[in-house]
């Protein structure tokens, strides 16, 4: 197989890893005002992702580095073109990350409140903007002959892209709330289930609209197949949540997000960044990729290390498999 094609799918896999994992971190962050009735509740919520948010976020660093190394042209066009959107994502990720660490350093309510808001906004902004960004990539953006983006920030905020943003926002929110139901116990677990049922219903509608729009405008056979998997998994997750099958509900949310992201990459293939003004200016797998030598070096590295990475990350989740409860927090914080 052509190594550049392989790396197209490895990049897709890394973004799937990022959205499946940091996706529920965003959801947990956004759920603070809905599920966190008091400080202990909020600490329960934050501690469900406490040991893992950093490793989850690292997926985007690795995805970005893989993009840089395997598709320098794609990386350069995307990051310079979506400048202000990425700036907002960066600021949000900074605010969110430090807040996890700083929030518990002082007891004052005002101090904690400030960092709660930074977590909420710092989670919602990337959850929305990643969807906007990926929808724009699939839709295509104006590029000149040197592959430089010629539009503005406002060109990125078109109806289709905003629907894409709303879709990731809702998907990640539901994913996070389902995760809370899986990782907590007692009253907050019940409330999370009820919230997941309501949020899930809205998510089904929004996601269906986005996938159908994408399918009719840019769809391929592979896209429709993967989109169908995503849709069925999403409905299955909603049903499982209703029956209290928390593990199944969470696993199916992961499948939904994974299949949806792969579907977008399938719609993109073999372009990586289509030019909406002139197809001749499009970035493709062929004209955006690195040399076979570089891709060979990276393929060997990925082949050896990705299984190892998945193993030790899986083990981490197993170590922290216990549910977080109010008692856990009170015992540690006494």
């Amino acid at each position: 197989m052509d190594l550049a094609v392989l790396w197209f799918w490895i990049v897709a896999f890394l973004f799937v890893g990022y959205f499946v994992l940091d996706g529920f971190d965003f959801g947990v962050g956004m759920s603070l005002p809905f599920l966190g009735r008091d400080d202990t509740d909020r600490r329960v919520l934050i501690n469900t992702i406490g040991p893992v948010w950093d490793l989850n976020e690292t997926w985007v660093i690795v995805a970005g580095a893989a993009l840089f190394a395997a598709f320098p042209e794609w990386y350069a066009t995307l990051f310079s073109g979506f400048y202000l959107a990425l700036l907002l994502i960066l600021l949000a990720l900074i605010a969110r990350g430090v807040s996890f660490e700083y929030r518990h350093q002082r007891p004052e309510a005002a101090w904690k409140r400030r960092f709660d808001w930074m977590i909420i906004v710092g989670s919602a902004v990337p959850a929305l903007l990643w969807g906007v960004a990926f929808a724009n990539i699939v839709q295509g953006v104006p590029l000149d002959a040197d592959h430089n983006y010629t539009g503005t920030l406002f060109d990125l905020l078109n109806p289709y892209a905003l629907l894409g943003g709303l879709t990731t926002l809702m998907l990640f929110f539901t994913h996070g709330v389902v995760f809370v139901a899986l990782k907590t116990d007692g009253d907050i677990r019940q409330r999370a289930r009820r919230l997941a049922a309501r949020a899930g219903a809205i998510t089904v509608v929004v996601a269906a609209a986005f996938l159908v729009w994408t399918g009719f405008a840019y769809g391929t056979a592979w896209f429709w197949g993967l989109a169908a998997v995503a849709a069925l998994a999403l409905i299955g997750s909603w049903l499982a949540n209703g029956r209290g099958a928390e593990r199944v509900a969470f696993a199916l949310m992961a499948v939904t997000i994974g299949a949806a992201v792969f579907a977008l990459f399938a719609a993109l293939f073999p372009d990586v960044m289509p030019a909406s003004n002139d197809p001749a200016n499009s970035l493709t797998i062929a004209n955006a990729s690195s040399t076979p030598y570089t891709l060979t070096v990276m393929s060997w590295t990925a082949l050896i290390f990705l299984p190892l990475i998945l193993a030790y990350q899986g083990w981490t989740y197993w170590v922290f498999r216990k549910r977080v409860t109010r008692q856990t927090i009170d015992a540690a914080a006494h």
Partner: protein
Amino acid sequence: MNELLDPLLLARWQFGLTTVYHFLFVPITIGLATSAAIFQTAWVRTGKVEYLRITRFFGTIFLINFAMGVVTGIVQEFQFGMNWSEYSRFVGDVFGAPLALEGLLAFFLEATFIGLWIFGWNRLPQKLHLATIWATAIGTILSAYFIIAANAFMQNPVGYEMNAERGRAELVDIWALLTNPVALAAFPHTIAACFMVSSGLIISAAAWHLARNQHLDTMRPALKFGLWGMLVAGALTTFFGDQLSLAMVATQPMKMAAAEATYDTVCGAAASFSLFTLGTPDGTTELFSIRVPYLLSLLSTHSFDGCVEGINDLQAQYAELYGPGDYAPIIWVTYWAFRWMIGLGVLHVLIALVGLWLTRKGRMPKQRWVWTVAVWSFPLSLAAMIVGWVFTEMGRQPWIVFSLLPTESAVSPNVTGLDVLISLVAFTLIYGILAVVEVKLIVQAVRKGPPEIAPPDPETGKVEHTATVY
């Protein structure tokens, strides 16, 4: 107004600001991860609860700092594409690979195992938990290696071929890239300097308590550890710094000439090193200086009769090779950054020596100034690290990749000055606010002192201490 909104200038300021800021946290992360691992190993091997208390104490400071290192690091990676897209297109085939290796081999390792370490107290078996901090420490050091290998390509491009048709550098030898002579010297130099910074932090924190005659049982061993760490790390930083300057003279002679502000080629005794110079503001005329004969020749060539090429001669050579242009960096920046780096480094070796002498055989100095100096060793060792980076990066100018790509050709052509200004202001604001919070929290954690932990239960051998929760 147009001058204010020059995207190149603003992008350079942003890179300088965000990189210096990021690197305030990196040496602490690298140095303290390994230091915490050593303290925890001492605890596991001896069972002395003091070592556990020291581990938890510096562990808290490490964590406050770690999150900042992570989130400011993402900015670094995104910034290449955002502000420097032409650079990214030009070097991606070469430069991207070490970044991807860094992510796969190092970042995942540290990010995963740090979570296990923070939340794994009482949850993992003691030795397995110890292994998690070592894995984190190894991850931090590995990541430094890959990023320095990437940086070394910008200083001294190796392992590539130019593809004229696509207008980019292409990787042909990954081994050459990873064993770049500049990287092989810069990596141990930087890592040793990171341990100077973390030792400075340990000395400062310990001195703060010892000056108040409190927490003697934990802070005395911590001070001893910091002082020895500073001495060893200082010696290694000097040794590898010397190796690095040899590599630099061979690959970037202009940088060495600029470090000494040597305009004309000089040999032997005339190749003197000025400890201090007063000159005209443009740096071209010397008014007063204190000079050590032969020292520049020794530093640059390891011989008394070596020659050091001057800026004017190199400028003429480069103009012939690369066409008309100004090929010298900003001389006063390189000149003074080089001196401050060396001066502060030497100062810390002296602090370590004097400190070890004054505290020999369990003595405790009573003089106030001794403790004041010790407390200042953390910010000053961090300052040494920063001026070192300023020297090596500013000294590379006007190139972004030496001899291949000028910095002015590397900036994103479609990003406006206003875009960059917005992001520069946003980063300055958020980084400024977070710096204040960060410093307050670290000071608070230092003042609070090590946690009280009762000695092990004589029957079960277990120690009661609470796990971390957010």
